Each structure stands twice: as C-alpha cells, then as structure tokens.
C-alpha cells in the first residue's frame, strides 16, 4: 500500500451535498428483465451528443434523450447467441465519421456495429475470455482498447479490423483486467487495472509505427504483425482489492476499488528507472455502500463531474476538479433499490442516466434554477 508522508494526506471530500445542482427523475424505462451492465453517451460525434446506448444480456439498444425527459428508442440489436451477455460498450467511429458502437462481453467477441447502416461492421475474435471494458481513443476514434478476463489488453483498429497490440506478458496483469482508459492528451498512454489489485500504465510510443501501419494495412488482417507490449511503464498498488474502474484526469488517475471511495492519485515515474515509481494520493471521493465490484463511474465530457451508483441504487455526483472535492448531489429514489453498475453523464453533465440490475434505465435531469 501507498505510504503518505506527513502533511501529504489525501483530501477527503465531505458527504454533505453542496446543492450546487439539483437533479430530478424525469423518466424511467424498463428495458427488460435482465441486468444492464453498461450505458454510455456518444461523445465521439457532436451531432449525436444526446444519443446513448445500453447493453444487457445479448442485447444492445440505442436511445435518444429528448426534451422533457423523453427517451426514444432508435435501434436495437440482438446477438444471435442467447448465451452472450454483453458487459461493456463504447462509441467509436469510422474514418469517414460513421458512428460505430463497439460492444463486448461474456463470449469474448467484440461486435462492431455500424449504427449508420445498422449492420455488423466487424467482429473481433482474439480474446480468450470475456471482455470487461472497451474504451475509445478520443483523438483517434477508430482505435479502441479492450480489457479482458484473459489478463490482456488489446488495441484494435475498428476501421481495418486489425488487432494492433497486445498488452500482456512478462510485466502484464496477473488476473482479469477490469478496466482500461486512454490518456486524454497523450496518445501513447493507456491505463489498465484489474483483479490483481494493480493499476498499470502502458506506453505504446515505441510501437506507434504499428498503430500507424494498421490504418493503411490492405492485406489480410490476420497477417498483421501484432506485437506484444510486455512491460508497462508504471505499476501502482493503490488499492488492496480488485480495482474495477480507472480513468485519466489529466495526468492523474481516478480509480476505485471496493472500499467505498474513488481515489485520485498521481503516478510519479522515476526518470532513470521506468516501471518503478511512487504514487501520490491526492484526493478521495467517498461513495457509501459501494463495496461490491464491477461498479463503474462516468464523467461528463470535460471531466468536471463524475457520477457513480452504489449497491442500494443511489447515485453520488462529485465535482472532480475542486479541492477539497465537493459532492454536487446525492440522487435517490424510493423505487430504485438495486445496484447501479454504470452511469452515464451527458456532455455538459445536465443529464445523468443510470442502469439498474433490474433492467431499468433512470433519467435524471438537472433542475434549471
């Protein structure tokens, strides 16, 4: 565990809501009976900022948030394999801007859905186990990265269907990888975390030629010289249990385990010896009753706020970038009692969506004062 020097204790946010913003339930949609594991707004394409998607069971559904709390179904896709259970989704797009929806789950097959033509664009096989998270590189939205139970993270090019890099091996994760995220500005960096209690930061700087090559590859995808990235540049043991969600906040990392809190920390790599390093824990965002794994948080486009559900169906909205952290709001509803696995904040944070274990989608809208 990380030791902190005197006077360097992390700042812990207060759980008293600041009432900076008030949210009210504006809609509730029962999608099905099966639990929904992921929900996400489309931040990739400015035209579709009000479009979101959910996954649960073998189903992927695309909705639109309309004025007045209205939720409209746009498209729904069902995997022909009834055993499939999608765990994660991410929005991406083709080189020409066609919106893609990338989903993965139990079967370990990544489905790339072309939402423009309502077709399966590609299916990626390669992962040996189920897929726990998929994220899109915001700066190059045809690159997606997937975290899998097979202890590897893979980088894919959805445009050409190439598996570019595999982050696994001698220095890789030693258990399921649960979460992965692209650095917001440094294209080469990704962070991953998982059941081995570590957060690992990887650099693909030395492998970038392969990433570039993947865009122009015209031969068979299977002939692409996929490379293994075996050594992360940084391995942090911030938590003492499964780390199930991590996100970059600038050069800092937000990560959470099953300890009822989100932790903001700074990875400090030593110049002369990469791989090793120290961790400086900056802030803590308490989230009561959040002690089961596979609960993920979401942020608005600018990472001003983060929303996270808990085991009892409550949502905590934290202001991320203030110190000490400020709890913007605590959302609860008498009818929402089950665990919330994932939330989705809209571009500006004015709408918060949550997906529940009982297959419901809740829409919260900020009250304009």
């Amino acid at each position, binding site marked *: 565990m990380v030791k902190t020097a005197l006077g360097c204790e992390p700042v812990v946010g207060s759980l008293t809501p600041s009432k900076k913003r008030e949210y009210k339930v504006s809609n509730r949609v029962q999608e099905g009976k099966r639990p929904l594991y992921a929900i996400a707004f489309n931040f990739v394409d400015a035209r579709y900022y009000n479009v979101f998607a959910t996954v649960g069971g073998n189903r992927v559904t695309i909705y639109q948030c309309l004025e007045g709390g209205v939720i409209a179904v746009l498209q729904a896709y069902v995997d022909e394999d009834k055993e499939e259970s999608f765990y994660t989704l991410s929005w991406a797009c083709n080189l020409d801007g066609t919106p893609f929806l990338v989903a993965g789950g139990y079967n370990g097959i990544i489905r790339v859905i072309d939402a423009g033509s309502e077709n399966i664009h590609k299916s990626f*096989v390669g992962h040996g186990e189920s897929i726990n998270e998929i994220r899109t590189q915001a700066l190059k939205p045809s690159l997606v990265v997937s975290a899998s139970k097979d202890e590897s993270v893979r980088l894919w090019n959805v445009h050409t269907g190439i*598996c570019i890099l595999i982050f696994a091996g001698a220095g890789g994760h030693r258990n399921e990888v649960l979460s992965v995220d692209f650095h917001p500005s440094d294209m080469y960096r990704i962070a991953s975390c998982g059941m081995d209690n570590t957060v690992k930061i990887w650099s693909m700087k030395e492998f970038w030629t392969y990433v570039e090559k993947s865009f122009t590859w015209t031969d068979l995808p299977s002939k*692409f010289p*996929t490379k*293994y990235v075996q*050594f992360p540049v940084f391995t942090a043991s911030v938590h003492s249990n499964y780390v199930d969600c991590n996100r970059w906040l600038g050069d800092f990392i937000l990560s959470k385990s099953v300890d009822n809190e989100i932790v903001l920390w700074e990875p400090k790599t030593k110049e002369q010896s990469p*791989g090793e390093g120290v961790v400086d824990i900056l802030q803590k965002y308490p989230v009561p009753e959040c002690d089961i794994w596979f609960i993920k948080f979401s942020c608005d486009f600018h990472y001003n706020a983060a929303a996270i559900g808990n085991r009892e169906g409550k949502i905590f909205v934290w202001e991320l970038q203030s110190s000490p952290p400020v709890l913007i709001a605590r959302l609860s509803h008498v009818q929402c009692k089950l665990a919330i696995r994932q939330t989705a904040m809209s571009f500006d944070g004015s709408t918060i969506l949550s997906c529940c274990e009982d297959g419901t989608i809740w829409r919260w809208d900020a009250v304009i004062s």
Partner: protein
Amino acid sequence: MPGLTLVARETTNLGCNCNRSRAGDQMCHQESKVHLSSEEAIAAEESLSVYCKPVELYNILQRRALRNPSFLQRCLHYKIEAKQKKRMQMTISLSGIVNAGAQAQDVLPLYVLLARAVPDNMVEKHSVAYRLSRACVLTAFSESGRERSQATFIMPELNKLLAEAKSGSLSVLLVTSGETRVSSGENNLLKDHSDLASIPSKFGGQCLWGKLPVDSLYSAWEKCASLSLGHRSEMLLTIDMWSSFLEPSCLDVDSCITFQTPHTSGTTNSLRQVKVNVLAHEVGAKERSPYESYAYNDVPTSSLSQIIRLRTGNVIFNYRYYDNTLQKTEVTEDFSCPFCLVQCASFKGLRYHLSSSHDLFNFEFWVTEEYQAVNVSVKTDIWRSEIVADGVDPRHQTFLFCSKPRRLRRSKSQLQNAKHVHAHVTKMDSPEAAGEGSHEDFMEKDADGSSNKLENKKVSKALFGEYHMQSRKRVSECCHPENPCALESMEPVASSSNMFAKTRKLSVERPDPRNHALLQKRQFFHSHRAQPMELEQVYSDQDSEDEVDDDIADFEDRRLLDDFVDVTKDEKQIMHLWNSFVRKQRVLADGHIPWACEAFSKLHGPDLVQVPALIWCWRLFMIKLWNHNLLDARTMNNCNIILESYQERSDPKQS
C-alpha cells in the same frame, strides 16, 4: 537359463543382420491355430518383426551390462544368491556326564565355543591358543528342557566345510568356567564381538575343557547321505575334559583364549567325560522345491507343462503382434526378464523391472492361481531416433528434436527401409465383438494344435510346453467361464481374422484429399495473435510463429536493464549489446561462447575502441566468462588482439 524356448538364444551373437531370424527363434514358433492365408501369414510374419529392433536394442544394452552390471542388479543378484545358499545348522546339547559321582555344577555352566586353533609357533609349548569365532552358553542338560540347554551354530554347507575340515584347525570347544575370577581385561576381550556377548565377563581362571574337532564331525556328516535331502543327522559323542588354566588374551583385534596345561600333570589325563548330542541338518535349501533341481532331460514331456506352472518363478510371456491378434509365448524361470535375462526375485520385481528398463514395450500383467503371465506388445507411439532404418548409421544422423515426427517418418526412403519396425496399430476388438468367437471355434483350433503336435514329433520340448499351456488355457476357459483373466487373454486371438481385413483396408485406402477437405473446413488461429487465419495463410510456406522481432526484443531488453540501479550506463550498454548479439546469433550453449566472444569483438570492436570505458566493461565481462570456465585464455587473448588492432587503426586517424 531363463526362457524354455530360448534354446537358440546366444548373447554373443553380434551384428544386426541376424536379428530377424533370432527374433523368430526367441519368440518361439508361429502359432498355427488361427487360419491365415499365405498372404496373411506373410503379413503376420512381417508384423512380428516389429519386435526385432527393440529386442536388438535391449540385447546391445544387456551385452554392455554383462561386463559392467548396474548397481541395482548386482545388489539384487547378491540377495538372490544369499537367499538360495545352503547352510548347515549344528545344534549341540549336553546329555550327561560320564564320570560317576560328578555333579552337574562341576560342568555347568558350560560354554560352547566355535574356535580356530592359533598356529603353534605363536604360543608356548604347554599351552594351546584358540581364536574365538562364536560362542554359546549352556546352563542345563538337554533333558531338563530349560532354557539354554542347546547351542546352535550356523556353518557353511557341507562342500565348503570340506576345506575347513582339511585344515583341521576349526573345533568346537567345551569349557567350564571352573574357578572363576574377575579379570580386568575380559571386558575388553569380549566387548567387540557381538557373537560372544553371551559369555559372562568372569570368564577365565582354572577350568575344564574339551575339544570336538570339526573335521571329525564332517567325516561323520559326509557318510550320512540323507543329509543333503533335508534329513537330520544326530550323533551322541563322548568328550574328554581336561583341566587347565584358561587365560584370555588379546591378539590383535581378535579375541583369543589360551589353555595352559599345568606342568606338574605331565601326561594329559582326562578328568571328566561329558556326553554331547550333536544334531545337524541343512538349512536354506528348503525354499527350493524338488522340482527345481531336476534337469529337463529327466522329466517326461507330458508332465513338463505341469512343472512349468508349478514353479513359482516361472512367468509366461505372450508377445502380441499382428495388430494384437496373434501371440507367441515363452516362459522364463526365476522371474527372469526375457530381454536381458535379469532375475528379478519376485513377480512384483519383474513388473518394476520391465516397465522401467524396457519401455519400448507395453506390458500387461496378470496373475492367476495357476500362473503368472505378462502380455507384451510393442509401443508404436514412441518411435525415437534410436530406431533408425537399416543401412543408416545413426552416427550420421543429425541429432535434433523434431516437433513434427510424423512428417519425418513418412519420408519415403525412411518408410521403405524401416518398414519392418513400422507397426500398424489398431485397437483390440471390443469384448462384445470378440464374444462371437464361440467355444466351438476354440475347440477346433485346439484340435488343430494337437494334431500338429502329433505330426511334428521332433518339435522341441519347449514347444510342447507351450502347446500344453495353450490347450490348458482353453480348456479352463471352456469349463470355467468365471475365469476372466484367461478369457480376456484369449479374446484378441480369437477375433483375429476379421480384424485383419478391416484394418488393412483402412491403411491402404486412406484418401489424401479427405484430409485436405478437413483442413479446409476448419478454422485456424494464429498461435501468437489468436487471429483467425485465412486458408491462404494456412497453406502458405511462411511460418511466423517463431519469429522474434529484434527491435522489440532490443527495446524490452533495454527496458529490463534500465531497472538495474547498481549498474553504470556503460555496463548497461555492454550488457545490451551482448544480449542482442547472443539473441541474434543464437548463442545457446557453453561451447558457443569462445566463438561468440571473438565475433563480438570483431563486430563491435570499431565502436568499442571509441569509448575506452566500454572496452573495459567488455574485457571485464570476458574475465567473468573466463572465471566461469566458459572462455579459454587463448580466445580471450585473440579477442584482445582484435581489439588492439582496431585501436591501432583508429589512433593514427585521430591524431
């Protein structure tokens, strides 16, 4: 020698060309019970030759072992011999005193010592010295039935005793302790000899003693013919006892006693006489039953099979061949291994020996009340490089691990040459299928076998033995269907002929295009990338699975070296250069190091001489290699000469 059928076996038989015929002899004759067409018979004969190569290999090993047997086998051999060695057990008890009026207390306790006379020149005139070898004490007469009424000695068997008898020095001494006194030296005298522990420490002083020479005992035993048949011989002897002064003495390490006859007595007159009962019989020979000492010549052929079964050490070996449908049988005695003639002492031992020393074969062991047997078949899945085609010198073959052994074996010339070692294996018929072979079938075949026997009177006894066994097996099978062992063993034999036709077809008609189609139907994945492969890629000659990306390997190497904290930058640089050199040049073995050092010096020399720190790191590294005996001084010198030449070349340019 083990193996009744091994008449023709000669271990001195060198060379490979003879193996075919030899194997035929060893494995006894071809069973004629199953009707085979001439073509099939030839094929069967050919399939039997599967045994040739492994047997040849084991013969070679055995020949080597003759001069230098393995430790385990030497120990085992010794143990077996010791177990079977004959010995004489002699029991001496005191039955009475001859002299009237003598009291028992005068004689008892009586020490019975097995002792060897020490040559005269070592001691004085009036004394006799003996070196003790074993001792017992008698505290009672034999009639009394009390404890310690008899002394027992184990002696060598009669033939060996002859030598002792001739020398005349070994005797049995009877000593009364007489007037005893405690002497300080006695404890020392006796303590080293556990055999003599029964003698109390107060041994010594005035005593009475009598002598019973072993040579006289021997001559008595020799006359007794029944002794070797396990009978006892009993003798009642009268022994004169003399009075003398007994003195323990320590000559070297052996414990000795000296009897000093008093000078005054002059003549040796016996004071007392004791009656001693000497009982002798052979021990150790009992384990061998009388059957086993008979030579086969004396046994009527009809009873030979009985003897074969009755002997505990006899093991039946059934050699399966021709897709396990035929078998040849031989019998070995004393639990011997049929391949290397090692005697294994027990069936369990044989079992361990076979599976550990002869792993080119499969063994099935089964034991019934009547006999113990081993089914042998050739393992076909482990063709190793030991088995090479005829006419190929194994020394000329490259030693390499072949990850695709099948492809290698199918190469045509190899197939043709090594044809006789290439066995086609099919599974034994299932019991249901084999059940079709009815009892009539068996009987018919039986009749065949016996008629054959009658015709061919000159066939060796061994073969008769085998026939008997075969027929016995069948009879027992017919009468006692509850005997599953026998049934099992027979099934494969019975179901032979149908099996043959099927398998033959299969091997010949296996179509190649079908494999091709199977290949097309399947989805293949790349072993590294786990990406589905296109058919074109599957068929292509390119194989990228073992590819090493040198750039990435270099990158990773640098990354790992960077983790070292206590290593200077120059050292890291040399480490990195060396690591990538070793990887690229595939320096794998210790023996490659000298070459690698020279080549490294040549390759990187021009760069190294530019940076003196690097050159010193490299030299230090070479010294480390030299320390570990990986690099010889001469090569290190060569490397330094190379480096110096580069230095000289670069210096004038710079100046």
